[in-house]
């Protein structure tokens, strides 16, 4: 299945070449019809609103763990041997920026840097949110974000706080939640102690990369699923 946005984009691109191909004209006409039907579901009685469906149960709890977590701040790698998270998932209506889960608590352990040990403390009150944005039909891969991230890290006499969001990509078949960064979803240093001079400054954008394996319920063995139903 295609999301409404994807259908609209296909229509636009097909329109560029439609003059040269009768066959494409027919395909485009079909797609356009479908797009019209999907783009205005609210106006059509009997067509359900798009939603993100969480499986196998909704709501459900989950736990997730990762190894080899890396926060890179201005070229200084800070790694944690492991990270563990818990939270809950629930189906929700909407197409983009839909909250399908919350994360609390999330902990890091075994964290170090070239300077020495790093002590990260996360603030998951309020809970971090797992947002769903897009999913290519049939892929089982949800592109989204984790928002509300708030953590404080200490190394030597430097304590700095980062807040913001990260890119999150969840794959149903593997149960892996991959965390990365882009221009939209990023972390920002919002406060620093005097000892951070030269290490961290307000406005810096550290990158956070990790791959969490998720199971439901907490401590269970089943991989949760997240599916977009237009």
């Amino acid at each position, binding site marked *: 299945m295609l999301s409404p946005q994807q259908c609209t984009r296909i229509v636009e691109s097909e329109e560029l070449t439609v003059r040269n191909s009768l066959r494409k004209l027919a395909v485009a006409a079909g797609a356009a019809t479908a797009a019209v039907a999907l783009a205005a579901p609210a106006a059509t009685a009997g067509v359900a609103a798009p939603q993100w469906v969480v499986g196998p149960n909704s709501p459900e709890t989950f736990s997730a763990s990762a190894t080899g977590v890396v926060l890179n701040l201005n070229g200084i790698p800070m790694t944690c*041997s492991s990270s563990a998270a818990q939270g809950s998932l629930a189906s929700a209506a909407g197409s983009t920026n839909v909250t399908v889960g919350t994360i609390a608590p999330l902990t890091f352990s075994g964290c170090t840097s*070239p*300077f020495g040990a790093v002590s990260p403390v996360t603030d998951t009150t309020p809970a971090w949110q797992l947002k769903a944005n897009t999913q290519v039909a049939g892929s089982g891969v949800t592109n989204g974000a984790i928002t509300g991230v708030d953590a404080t890290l*200490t190394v030597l006499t430097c304590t700095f706080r980062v807040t913001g969001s990260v890119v999150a990509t969840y794959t149903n078949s593997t149960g892996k939640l991959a965390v990365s960064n882009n221009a939209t979803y990023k972390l920002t240093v919002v406060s620093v102690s005097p000892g951070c001079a*030269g290490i961290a400054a307000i406005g810096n954008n550290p990158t956070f990369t990790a791959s969490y394996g998720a199971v439901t319920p907490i401590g269970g063995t089943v991989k949760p699923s997240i599916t977009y139903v237009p």
Partner: protein
Amino acid sequence: MKRIQGAGVRRRTARGAAVAAAVLMGGMIPSAQAAPGVLEIDADLAYTCDLPSGEQPVKAGVRARVAEAVRAGHAVQPEDVVTEVTLPEGVVTELTAAGAATVSAETRLTVDLAQNGGHAEAEWVGAGAESAPVPETGGLTLNTSGGVPYVKPGAPGDLSFAAAGLSVVLTPRTAEGAPAEPRSLALECVLDADQGASLATVGVAADEEDGTGSEPSPSASLPGGTAEWGDTGRPEVGKRAEEPAAADAPPCVGDPDDPFNMVAYVTGYANVTKLDGATRFPVACGQITQGETRPDFSDPGYMHMYQDSTVVLDYQGKPQLPPAEGTFLTFGFMPTTATLEMTQIPPGTRDDGSLTPNVKSDLAIKMSDFSSRNTTVITLDLMLRLHDVEVNGVPLDVGDDCRTSKPFTLTLNGLGTYGADGVLDGYTLGQGGPVTGSVTLPPFSGCGVDEDLDNLFTASLSGSPGYVKQVQGAPCAAAQGDRAVCTPENQPVDVPKAAR
């Protein structure tokens, strides 16, 4: 039972004299001749070392003595270990370009221990006794020496020692004695293929007795921990020997109102010159003021982060190490004990009122994989006072002012490596770890009440460099209030144990 195997092993040769001389430089007292049943390790190895400027071939000679055969359950203690590193002209050119007139070296040789199919690793750390002049052309050979771990095989079967990786930290200085830039040059070296790396094979016979009582006593040797085989015959890598339990740590309270303050415990051993064995210094407190971190991108492919900090010892409010008991020989044979009081000459202040840094770190992060090396040079200006002296058990009144005639400098080097896998190993200021160096005591003055005893102590203690190894614990930054490293009283949680 004689087992002399491997390319690097041969009986005592003319080179033995040089070994003995080098060992004397290291402050130890070797026997004049190799005893029967002793294997002479004398291996010449070819390495390829990774430098910022590229790969360079480096020759390493490893000399040591080890027992030819032992019984299972008894320790094998390699002694008189000297590593001789020959740097090619390419490295010397790099030192010259850095403005270096002299250079000192610290080496870390990984030794693969194998017995009955089991393996363990030992680390042979050596420090250069003194700086060597950097030649204008040609290569340069540097010697390092130091105590190494002993190995305790738990079962019979040949125990083999083979050389593996080598890391070398060079500390260049200008003609004026100031640190050159870069302050240190780190070489990570891999053994070239197609050469015998065997150092020695020690025969291990079944223990006919109950296996106790014949280990070298820690005070009579310089082990740096042990590699030990358990009853299962499998090596227990990195297991430390019976280290002395940490003595009660003295108060070491950080200042929660100073955002740059850290406190850390430190303890370790010093071969106070000509000492017959090492002196363990009790756990001491260091008050550290962390300096600003200065990123530098002038080295292509690397980001250097320089950090200049200051450490001042703190013992009951005085810049001292806690008093230590030392044993040495006067007249070369008379056992003499004394209380050693080591006082730091605190660093001076700069124009802005801050203390002159004496802890200088260079963190070099390789931008391609974010691995890094952190080299730290700690410089302490010290005075040593002796009191409560006893010669052969008889008190000798040396007065209250028996001390070195002038301050002397103890330079300690620490090396930390951080792999692309995120594992930090070795020393950083923020993690702690081992630092090594050497110290040369100046002549003594003011010793004796009724007679002048200066020459007695000068002859016994002054002159030759001695090896020093200290271990720093993880510091507590009181203002950050991190309970992982700070007690509720703002003291360091981590109390290190002395390691040799």
